[in-house]
């Protein structure tokens, strides 16, 4: 098997807000063209992780230790000039709410132009051509380049954001809950579109969401985060068909199904911990149905089962 260099490699990343550790020693890697989903509830650090990777953190948040290598380059030490060179051309970001990210007083075309000009000196005719091309790519009639954001539907706004992110055909697209402001039908439609674009252009994608079921059919690999740490990471189908970490299985069991027999679900009792004072040992132990005595004192390392890494003592090698 030819070992391809991962597009993105995160090693032991630690991000803090003052004294609160929002991301605690997270490591992951994304291969070229791979779709990695990061799933977790609010407060788990997934958005902070994303911002850290994209170098979009603002004070008081800061990267304390660890590194982020994008295409072999160390991202954490790059200065603003070098960053600008890499940003948008090689990786881009799609934010959660288009209404917040799009400028309400500029047309879509003007914003695309701004994005292009900020990163490359292009002739106006080329900019126009590229803008039309990228709008068609996401399924929007180029006539909407003249539209203002409020004139488009929610789904179309999100697609415009994606068009902007793809304008330089980057190798990596980072997406922070791009579908959560849409209704179910538009969500489905957008996910299919993203998958299609990925096949066409070949970018790798990191997709952050709180909705596990949304990514079940679209991602290659899945990472489950809780309280700033990765709890389980592996191929999507394996994590879904057989979630090993008690949190992953609890989370999966929190989605009522519309098919199959109606059954009572338990969810997960309690609530996520205060990151200023995380529980000792395994962070999930206060809520874990399978807690063991040493879970309360010893923080579990990652154990491997087939291709899946699980941060849980239940899978210690001598069991």
């Amino acid at each position, binding site marked *: 098997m030819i070992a391809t260099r991962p597009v993105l490699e995160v090693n032991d990343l630690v991000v803090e*807000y003052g004294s609160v550790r929002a991301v605690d020693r997270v490591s992951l890697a994304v291969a070229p063209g791979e779709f990695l989903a990061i799933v977790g509830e609010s*407060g788990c650090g997934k958005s902070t992780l994303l911002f850290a990777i994209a170098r979009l953190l603002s004070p008081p948040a800061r990267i304390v230790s660890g590194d982020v290598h994008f295409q072999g380059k160390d991202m954490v030490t790059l200065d603003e000039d070098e960053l600008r060179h890499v940003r948008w051309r090689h990786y881009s970001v799609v934010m959660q709410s288009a209404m917040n990210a799009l400028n309400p007083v500029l047309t879509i075309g003007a914003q695309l132009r701004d994005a292009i000009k900020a990163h490359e000196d292009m002739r106006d005719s080329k900019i126009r051509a590229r803008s039309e091309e990228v709008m068609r790519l996401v399924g929007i009639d180029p006539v909407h380049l003249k539209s203002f954001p409020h004139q488009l539907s929610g789904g179309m706004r999100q697609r415009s954001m994606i068009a902007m992110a793809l304008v330089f055909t980057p190798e990596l697209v980072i997406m922070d809950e791009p579908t*959560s*402001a*849409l209704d179910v039908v538009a969500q489905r439609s957008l996910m299919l579109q993203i998958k299609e674009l990925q096949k066409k252009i070949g970018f790798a994608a990191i997709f952050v969401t709180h909705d596990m079921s949304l990514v079940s059919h679209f991602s290659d690999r899945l990472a489950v985060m809780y309280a700033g740490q990765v709890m389980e990471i592996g191929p999507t189908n394996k994590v879904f068909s057989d979630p090993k970490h008690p949190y992953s299985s609890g989370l999966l069991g929190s989605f009522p199904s519309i098919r199959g027999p109606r059954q009572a679900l338990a969810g997960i009792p309690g*609530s996520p*911990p*205060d990151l200023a004072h995380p529980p000792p040992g395994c962070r999930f132990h206060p809520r874990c149905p399978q807690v063991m005595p040493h879970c309360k004192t010893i923080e579990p390392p990652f154990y491997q089962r087939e291709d899946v890494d699980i941060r849980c003592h239940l899978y210690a090698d001598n069991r």
Partner: protein
Amino acid sequence: MAVRVVTDVAPIESPPISSRAGVLAGLAAALLQNKKALAGLVMLAFFALVALLAPVIAPYDPHSLQFDPILRPSPAHLLGTTSFGQDIFSQLVWSTRQSLLLAIIAGLMATLISLAIGVSAAYLGGVADHVLNLFTDVFLVIPTLPLMIIVAAYAKSGGVAVLIAVIVITGWSYGARQLRSQALSLRNREFLEAARVRGERSLYIIVFEVLPNMTSLIVAIFLGAALYSVLAAAGLQFIGLGDPNDLSWGTMLYWAQANGALLAGSPIWVLAPGICIALLGAAFALLNYAFDEISNPALRPVKKTK
């Protein structure tokens, strides 16, 4: 559709309020931790103390004309004497009372009027809202100086009442707009809807549900109005609108100017009350900023990380 999932954990960046304390106690704690607030509070406390203890602190009767005029500062007369032979230091100390009282009373009255008009406009809506807004705008736009001159021409006996009236009339409209805006934005908050659905009466809702959520803004407006009052009172007294026989920093300035203090060689007569006015104003301004910062975390100074 906004399926905005809220944090199921207390927010990381919430200010350090002790968990058992009420919101007011929390506010007090936040104030004490804010440098601007502390500075403002210290200055205000200082002036309040001076006002209270005036009889004790002032060495002489401020009105007494027994001393030699225009004396230089000396141990006997810390700030020298006026053209009439009065001790400037004693005058300054006693004047603190009226200046402070004017600021607080005029500030309070202006705030109350802003509150009544602003919140009514927000809640009555419709035609009443339009009328009240028009009313507010008219007062916002009235030029204060010509108004003061006109009033001065008509008010035969001046005095504190006229001063307060002029300050309040010119000062209430600014706050009314802000209070109306906040009341409007609160109107659609779900806990108010919950109160309505529960069956509460409108008056109850306004007094017990809306106003408590506006305390931060109300205090900030009061502080702004107090600041305005300090400066407006001084200005009005300086041009002779108040009773010249009153003891306040503004009237000191009036007499100093009338007697050409700067030319006559006693600049202290002008500087001393001027500095006090500035300091009292600064105290209110600092507290005002501090309140803004506390209620809007986005305004807080960002600590520089290395």
